[in-house]
């Protein structure tokens, strides 16, 4: 029973593609998976927007949306209908073709990143040997779409927003990728499926071998998560759309459905980054304890994904926006060195083993690097009385 439930969707896909000729079967399977991913995560996107608004409202002791549907949970449908029926305004001086292509160029790579995520046992849409590289390659091409959107609008605010967004995404791309290299080193594979399988509990063990349970894995997980915040332009790294300075960033000049596409791409990017964090560090679809193996694997994946998204929302409700120089300092002076230190630490862990020796050697390195880098980032700056040059005192 548990096994059928576990493989429910895999069996469904097999049943749908079985009558087709051999040659086109993988393509059709891919297309169906893509459709399923779009449907599931499209719905997730809608529900997440409502949940986010309600959760942030509660954090600020407000009520949040509660009018449309039961407890306001149909708010996303109302919003969707609104954006769909809104007028699509393109500035007259805008570069029409690029302006039209930018939202598509943003959405397509983001959707492609979902293809390599293992949603459950045997549930990877495209099980590439270089899955992780595919994820990063697709993620890297979104920056160009951001540039296209900002540049083609012929609006200085959108251009500034795009420049900021690209600078931020490039800077955080390095720790984003480097923090995963440790996992690749330990697992010895770039395939997401193999990475997940390597984190399952070995026979006889009660605790799974998730990478987050190791000192270097914990640090790399946090780095990956912070970089994912920045990559998906979420608070506290939402400078590209800093309302107080540059109105709405690179998508000021977009309205109606194109704006909705940008919005959707942002959330889908958040989902795929969270999904990759789950895959790399939180054991993907594996159960944390061996005795919980009977729960279907895809439930584990989506449960962990939900926890991470809740964390995203929680952080958004908590943190203020960073300043541009703080953002860059944090990326280049803290995250990048820490990610570089984590790499040899993972190698040491590999040779010292999973026992107490590994902990004894690697934990002090990670903690020490964290403390020292944190000190050097914030400690030297003395906080003084601020002097105003132009304002009347």
């Amino acid at each position, binding site marked *: 029973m548990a096994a059928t439930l576990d493989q429910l969707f895999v069996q469904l896909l097999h049943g749908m593609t079985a009558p087709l000729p051999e040659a086109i079967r993988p393509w059709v399977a891919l297309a169906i998976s893509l459709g399923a991913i779009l449907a599931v995560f499209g719905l997730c996107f809608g529900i997440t927007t409502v949940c986010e608004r309600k959760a942030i409202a509660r954090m600020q002791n407000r009520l949040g949306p509660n009018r449309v549907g039961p407890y306001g949970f149909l708010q996303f449908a109302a919003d969707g209908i609104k954006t769909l029926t809104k007028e699509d305004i393109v500035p007259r001086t805008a570069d029409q073709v*690029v302006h039209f292509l930018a939202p598509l160029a943003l959405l397509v790579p983001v959707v492609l990143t979902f293809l390599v995520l293992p949603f459950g046992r045997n549930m990877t849409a495209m099980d*590439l*040997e*270089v899955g992780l*590289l*595919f994820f*990063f*390659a*697709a993620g*890297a*091409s979104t*920056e*160009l779409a951001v*540039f*296209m959107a900002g*540049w083609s609008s012929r609006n200085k605010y959108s*251009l500034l927003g795009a*420049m900021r967004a*690209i600078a931020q995404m*490039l800077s955080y*791309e390095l720790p984003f990728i480097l923090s995963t290299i440790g996992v690749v080193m330990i697992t*010895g*594979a*770039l395939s997401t499926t193999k990475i997940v399988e390597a984190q399952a509990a070995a026979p006889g063990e009660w605790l799974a071998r998730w990478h987050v349970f190791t000192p270097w894995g914990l640090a790399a997980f946090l780095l990956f998560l912070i970089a994912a915040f920045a990559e998906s332009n979420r608070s506290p790294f939402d400078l590209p759309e800093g309302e107080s300075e540059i109105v709405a960033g690179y998508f000021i000049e977009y309205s109606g459905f194109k704006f909705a596409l940008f919005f959707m791409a942002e959330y889908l990017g958040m989902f795929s980054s969270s999904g990759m964090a789950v895959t790399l560090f939180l054991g993907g679809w594996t159960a944390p304890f061996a005795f919980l193996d009977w729960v279907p694997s895809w439930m584990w994946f989506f449960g962990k994904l939900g926890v991470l998204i809740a964390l995203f929302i929680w952080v958004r409700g908590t943190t203020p926006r960073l300043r541009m120089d703080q953002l860059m300092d944090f990326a280049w002076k803290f995250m990048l060195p820490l990610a570089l230190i984590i790499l040899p630490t993972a190698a040491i862990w590999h040779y010292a083993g999973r026992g107490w020796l590994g902990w004894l050697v690697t934990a002090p390195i990670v903690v020490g690097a964290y403390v020292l880098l944190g000190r050097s980032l914030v400690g030297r700056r003395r906080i003084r009385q601020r002097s105003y*040059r*132009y304002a009347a005192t």
Partner: protein
Amino acid sequence: MSPIFYFLAMLTLGGAVAAMSLRNPVHCALSLVVTFVGLAGVYLGLGAHFLGLSQVLVYVGAVAILLVFVLLLTRGSGKDEFDERPDRWWPALGVGGGLGGVLIAVVLAQPGLALRTAPPELPTVRALGESLMTDFVLPLQVVGVLLTAALIGAAVLALSDRRRTPQDSGPVTSREEGETRR
């Protein structure tokens, strides 16, 4: 040959032609991205998965972004002035076309090219990494040094006028500051 290859080839060549002939430099850079993506597709079709995805990661994710950044920093998004000098196109087309023609003639005239049609055993990423660390360890180190040198060199070049800006010693008037900013 599959139709996918022909499609990707058209994409690649079309992008390249557009990148070299459009007026607006930003359009050129974006067309160049089309070329890069098309080439990555060709690599994937040839079975070089790692290379194809590296191509996207490096060229689309880094080089193209660098290009458009420099275009914007140098205010190059206006019209290119090449239409004022149309005389340069004829020699260039002559050289390029001649070279292309000669090379295509060479390719078509080589009967010995049809040596191996059976695909080689595709190396896994693990094998690739192992040979990087054994047979190719010296080139790898050299590339590492080269990249470091290029990084530092580019940073030094781009920062070269930093020392000319006066360090703020004492209060400056708004006019002075405005001028140094410019």
